[in-house]
């Protein structure tokens, strides 16, 4: 991604969690957030208009056996949990991508979802002294404790003290 050195530090001057604060093995739970039928249908109408995401009766006839959220909606909900819980209170610079997402179970209307985030690893490239990559595994759990989605991805975070890093 684009690299604009000092600008990052102005934007994130007030943030709380920096690259240095992540410790491998640490587990944090964010959420929960309840998903309504209306939200499932609204998201699907705009982005994934297939019967299993739009209509209860039509959804019963599909392999998912009932109305369920689009997998992309589940990903977006995960993002919101991670935003509210972490990104907005940190020096987050976004993510370059996602290594893998597994959609393990359907997300149903009324489900209450939490994100269980484990820090797997972190690395600070020498070529970019002001930031580093934190590798996460995020498991999204429903109210029954079932993992509905698992994601593995690197997050980019600015360091607390750029001068010290250089």
């Amino acid at each position, binding site marked *: *991604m684009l690299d*604009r050195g000092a600008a990052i530090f102005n934007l994130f001057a007030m943030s709380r969690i920096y690259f240095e604060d992540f410790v491998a093995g640490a587990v944090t739970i964010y959420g929960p957030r309840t998903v309504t039928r209306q939200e499932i249908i609204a998201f699907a109408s705009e*982005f994934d208009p297939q019967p299993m995401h739009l209509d209860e009766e039509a959804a019963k006839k599909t392999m998912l056996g009932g109305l369920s959220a689009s997998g992309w909606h589940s990903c*977006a909900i995960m993002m919101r949990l991670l935003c509210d819980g972490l990104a907005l209170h940190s020096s987050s610079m976004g993510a370059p991508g996602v290594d893998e997402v597994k959609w393990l179970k359907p997300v149903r209307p009324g489900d209450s979802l939490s994100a269980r985030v484990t820090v797997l690893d972190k690395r600070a490239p020498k070529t970019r002294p002001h930031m580093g990559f934190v590798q996460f595994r995020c498991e999204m759990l429903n109210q029954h404790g079932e993992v509905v989605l698992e994601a593995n991805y690197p997050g980019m975070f600015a360091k607390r003290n750029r001068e010290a890093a250089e």
Partner: protein
Amino acid sequence: MKFFDDIRIGDLREFGKHTFTVEEIKRFAESFDPQPFHLDEEAAKRSHFGALCASGWHTTAACMRLIVDYHKRLAAEMIARGEQPAKIGPSPGFTNLKWLKPVYAGDTVAFASEVFEMRPMASRPQWGVVRMRTIGTNQKGERVYEIENTAFIERRAA
């Protein structure tokens, strides 16, 4: 959807284009990704992105919409020819999603895919697994998005 048996490695599909407007970018971000560079032009200018840009998950969702519309058109054409379209099962997930460059407000991204792997399912002989790489390219010809999707696709009855 074509049946598994009629799909080949290397098959290319063009799903169409989507233009990401300021209004859409902000609306998606308010719901799902309320970071300053997706919500506010001024804050975005001061960020490492340099201008308002779409949430990466907005890009994936917009791509999905084009894929669904493509398959609906294809199914309608097949039905019009008197053919039965193949069923698609729920996707188990994806790998190697890359947000290669920001998708800025006003950008138009074209999405296309290529099949790179196919295998029949031993446990469920009526289904096959198809993996495809989908790529998003902006109006300047820059690759902004890449993902490897997996789909379960119905096989023709033996």
